[in-house]
C-alpha cells in the first residue's frame, strides 16, 4: 500500500481490493487486438496495489480511442472533449486534493489539439498522472498521421508521405519542465506497472508515455522494441542509480552496449562496453535537477526505427506542487486576514448611511 506524499490526502480503501473492483460493467469496445486492452488490464490490476478508496479515484480523458478508457474503470470518470483533459483534471485536482486524478490521452489528443494544456500542466506540476497512449497514428478518425508519426508516413491524408517531423513526447515533456517523465510499452505489463507505481508515488504531474500498438491503422509500429530478435539491441532499460547498459549480455552479465557521454560536447552515444570500459558508462540519475542528461537520453532513439529507445523513468525530481501551494496560499490568507467575513467585505471602507 502506497504511503507516498502524492497520495497522502487520498482516503484508503477499507478492505483489500482486487482487479475486479476496478472493472466497470461496460463492454470494452476497442478493436480486437488493440494495445489498449493490455494497458487497461495492467492499470486495473495495478490499482489495488495503491489501496485507494475507489470513489476517490478519477480518470479524465479527452477524445480518441484511448480516451474511452474511463468508461471501463469502476471509478469516477469523465470522457471530455478533444485535448482538454489536462485542463479539466487541473481544475479537479486543484480543488479536490483528496482525489487521485489520472488523465488518459493519446498522441493526437495530448500533442496536437491539446498540446498547450499538456505543456502547461507539466510546467505547473499539478498532482496529475498523465498516461499518454502513443500509437503514432489517428485511430478513431481512421488512420491519418499524428504528431508522432515518422516523417514520410503514408496515410489517407498524406498519400505522398507526411512532410512533418514528429514530436518526441519525452523530449517535449522534459522541455516543458516536467518533474516526472517515463516511457513504457503496452505489452510489457511488469515494466508498465513499475512505471505506474513510480508515477503514482510522484508528487506533481507525472507523464507516462505508453507505446501502444494500433493493430488496425499502424500495426507493428513498435515491433522493433517487442520482437525478441531485435528488442535486446533496440530497448534501453533505465534504472535509477544503475549504469545504462543493454544488448546481449557481456561477461559481467550486464548488457554489452552502454551509453557514454562525450566529455567534450556532453552528447550521449551508444558504445561497446568492451571497447570503452565500464567506467565510462553513464550511471542513470533520474533525480538530478539538471534535465540535460534525461533530455539527451530521450534523443538517443532513432525517430524512424526507434532503435536505442530508452524506457523506464527518465526524470523524477521534486518540485513545488501547484495544488499544494495553492492550498497553502488559502491557509495563509486565512491566518493573515481571518476567515472571510462576507458582511465586512460587502461593506468595504467607504460607506454612508441614509436614515
Amino acid at each position: 500500500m502506497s504511503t507516498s506524499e502524492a497520495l497522502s490526502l487520498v482516503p484508503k480503501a477499507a478492505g483489500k481490493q482486487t482487479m475486479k473492483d476496478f472493472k466497470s460493467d461496460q463492454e470494452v469496445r476497442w478493436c480486437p487486438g488493440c494495445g489498449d486492452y493490455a494497458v487497461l488490464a495492467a492499470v486495473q490490476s495495478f490499482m489495488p496495489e495503491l489501496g485507494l478508496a475507489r470513489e476517490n479515484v478519477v480518470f479524465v480523458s479527452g477524445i480518441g480511442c484511448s480516451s474511452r478508457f474511463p468508461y471501463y474503470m469502476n471509478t469516477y470518470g469523465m470522457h471530455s472533449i478533444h485535448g482538454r483533459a489536462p485542463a479539466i483534471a487541473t481544475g479537479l485536482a486543484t480543488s479536490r486534493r483528496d482525489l487521485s486524478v489520472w488523465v488518459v490521452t493519446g498522441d493526437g489528443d495530448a500533442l496536437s489539439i491539446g498540446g498547450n494544456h499538456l505543456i502547461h500542466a507539466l510546467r505547473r506540476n499539478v498532482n496529475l498522472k498523465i498516461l499518454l497512449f502513443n500509437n503514432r497514428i489517428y485511430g478513431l478518425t481512421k488512420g491519418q498521421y499524428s504528431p508522432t508519426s515518422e516523417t514520410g508516413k503514408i496515410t489517407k491524408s498524406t498519400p505522398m508521405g507526411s512532410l512533418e517531423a514528429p514530436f518526441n513526447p519525452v523530449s517535449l515533456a522534459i522541455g516543458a519542465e516536467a518533474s516526472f517523465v517515463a516511457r513504457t510499452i503496452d505489452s510489457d505489463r511488469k515494466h508498465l506497472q513499475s512505471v505506474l507505481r513510480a508515477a503514482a508515488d510522484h508528487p506533481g504531474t507525472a507523464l507516462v508515455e505508453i507505446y501502444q500498438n494500433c493493430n488496425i491503422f499502424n500495426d507493428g509500429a513498435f515491433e522493433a522494441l517487442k520482437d525478441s530478435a531485435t528488442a535486446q539491441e533496440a530497448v534501453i532499460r533505465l534504472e535509477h542509480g544503475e549504469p545504462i547498459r543493454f544488448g546481449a549480455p557481456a561477461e559481467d552479465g550486464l548488457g554489452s552496449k552502454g551509453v557514454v557521454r562525450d566529455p567534450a560536447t556532453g552528447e550521449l552515444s551508444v558504445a561497446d562496453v568492451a571497447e570503452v570500459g565500464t567506467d565510462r558508462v553513464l550511471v542513470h540519475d533520474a533525480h538530478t535537477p539538471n534535465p540535460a542528461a534525461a533530455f539527451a537520453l530521450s534523443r538517443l532513439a532513432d525517430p524512424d526505427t526507434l532503435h536505442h529507445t530508452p524506457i523506464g523513468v527518465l526524470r523524477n525530481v521534486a518540485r513545488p506542487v501547484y495544488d499544494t501551494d495553492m492550498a497553502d496560499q488559502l491557509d495563509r490568507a486565512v491566518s493573515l486576514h481571518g476567515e472571510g467575513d462576507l458582511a465586512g467585505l460587502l461593506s468595504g471602507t467607504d460607506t454612508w448611511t441614509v436614515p
Partner: protein
Amino acid sequence: MTSQVSSPITAGTADEPHVVVDVLGEQRKPAKETRQLDRVIIRFAGDSGDGMQLTGDRFTSETASFGNDLSTLPNFPAEIRAPAGTLPGVSSFQLHFADHDILTPGDAPNVLVAMNPAALKANLGDLPRGAEIIVDTDEFTKRAMAKVGWAASPLEDGSLGAFAVHPVPLTTLTLEALKDSGLARKDAERAKNMFALGLLSWMYHRPTENTEAFLLRKFAKKPDIAAANVAAFRAGWNFGETTEDFAVSYEVAPASAAFPKGTYRNISGNLALSYGLIAASKQAQLPLFLGSYPITPASDILHELSRHKNFGVRTFQAEDEIAAIGAALGASFGGALAVTTTSGPGVALKSETIGLAVSLELPLLVVDIQRGGPSTGLPTKTEQADLLQAMYGRNGEAPVPVVAPATAADCFTAALEAARIALTYRTPVFLLSDGYLANGSEPWRIPQLDELPDLRVEFASGPNHTDADGTETFWPYLRDPQTLARPWAVPGTPGLEHRIGGIEKQDGTGNISYDPANHDLMVRTRQAKVDGIAVPDIEVDDPSGTARTLVLGWGSTYGPITAAVRRIRREGGQVAQAHLRHLNPFPGNLGQVLKAYDRVVVPEMNLGQLAHLLRAKYLVDARSFTQVTGLPFKAEQLAAAVTAIMEENADVDV
C-alpha cells in the same frame, strides 16, 4: 480671455433639468459665493498617462461618501500608453451626480476638464452651449496643438465663445506648489491631476479627507510622492478659493430622498459581480473556483477574486480561454461553485466546453463582460452583441440559460441569480454584463446577509435506482421530476462511481447510447429543462395604464432607457417600460406583455439581437433601435427615437 465664470450652468436637459439657486454666504467653506445645483455632469479628459481614471475615481468616491446619487462612464483607449498628445490617446472619465435619483452618466458634460489640446478637441463636440471648460493652458504649445491640427489656439481665437472657459496654468501651478518637495520636475508634473482634482473638489464642495487618506495609502512606499500629491491636491483647492477666476462654487445636496433607508457604498459592475460570486459561494456553502484567462474588460474580476483567498476562493489563471473553462468544469465535477470569466472572443474559444457542460449537466457560470466586436473589436468599449452567441453559439442543440444585469450594482444580484439557476438545474449559465457596467459605478445599498438567497444544494449520497434483480444502483441521469436536474454526485462519494462524457447518454443510466429515439428524447429533455427554469414574471412600468407603446430592453441599457422614458413622460407622452433580466428562458408572461401593446421598441447596443429573438418566438413586430458606437445610449436620442416610433401613424393606430 473669457472670465464669465459666474455664469450659471445652463446645460440642463429636459429629463433631468438644472435648478440653479443662488445661495450667498451660508457655507462654512468654501468662503465664496455658493450656488445650489440639483445635478452636475463633469468630464475629466487627458492623455492616457495623465491619470484621468484615477482622478475620476477619486472624485466619484468623494461624491459617493457625500451621499449624492451618481453614475460614471470611464472611457479609455485600448493601448496602455497611446501616443501622447494625440486624439486616439485621450482618456476620459465622466461623472454625473445629483441630489436625486439618476440613471445614466449623463448625455452631455456641464464641465470639461481638459488637460491638453487633444483632450479638448476630442470632447468639444459633446459639450452643450454654456458648459464650463477648465484647460491646462501650459499644454497649449504650438507643437501640442499641431498634433491635433490646430494652427491657432482655440483659447485665443474666440472659437470657444459659446463656453465658459477657465484657462488655468495647471502644470506651472503644480510645479510651483511642489517647488520645495525635492521632486524632479517630471515627477512633480505628474501630480497635476491631483491639482485639478483639488480644484474641482473645491468647486463642488466635495469632502477631501478620504482622498488625502487614499493618496497616503496608495503611495505608502513613496512618502515623498504621497506628500507631493497631497500638496498638489490642496494647492488646487486653495487655488479655487483664492483666485478670482473662480468666483462661485456649487453645492449639490445629498440625494437623501432618492435612496431607501440603508447603508450605501459606491460600486462598479465588476466589483459587484465579484462580490456576488463570493456571496453565492457562501450562500451555497460551496467553495468558489474561478478559471480565467486575462481579457479586457473582464480581468478585474480575476484580480478581485484573487484577493479573497481567505473566503476559500481558488483562482486559476489558465494558459488559455479553453483551459480556463476546462478547469472550472473540472472543479464543478468535484463539487465547487465554478466560474469562468471572459469577454466575447473568449466565449468563442470556450464554446466547445460550454457544450460539454450542457451535456454533462454540471453547474457552471460563464461570465461574459461584452465588448465591441467582432474579433478583437473594441476591447475597452461596450456593446451587447454577444446575446446570440450566448444563446446559440455552440454545435448541436445546446440550450444555456442567460441572465443579464441592468446596472453596475445589479451585477451583484444577477450573479446570485445566475448561480441559483446553475446550481438548481445543473447547467452552465451565461451572465452577460458589458464594459459599461463593468467599469461604471453607482451607489449600492449594501444588503444584509439575511436578505441573500439560500443557494444550498444537496449532493447525491446514495443509490437512486433499483435494478430488476433488486440491486440498488446509481443512475447519474435520473432526473428530478420537477426541475429535470440530474443528481450531482461528486467524486469521493462511495457507491456512486460513474462515468460521464460528451457522447450522447442513455436516459437514466447515463451509459453511452447511439439510439435514435434516445437521442431525440435527450435533446428534447435538455431543452425542456432550460425552458422550464422558474424565472419571475417581467414587470411593466406603465403608470398611466394607457400607453400603446412598450420600450423593452435588457442589460446595461436600463439606465438610458429609463431616463428616456421619464423624459417622454414629462413631455406628456404615454409609454410603458419593461426590462429583461432573463433572456433564456424568457419570463412566462412576456408573450402576453408584448401582445398588450401596439408597438414594441427594443433599444440595443447591437443590430437587433433581442428583437430577433422576440420576433421569432412571439411573432411580434418588435422594432429595433440600435447603436454600436461602443458607448451607451444617450437618453435624449433614445427619447427622440422612441417618440418618433410612437408618433408614426398615431392617428390610425391608437
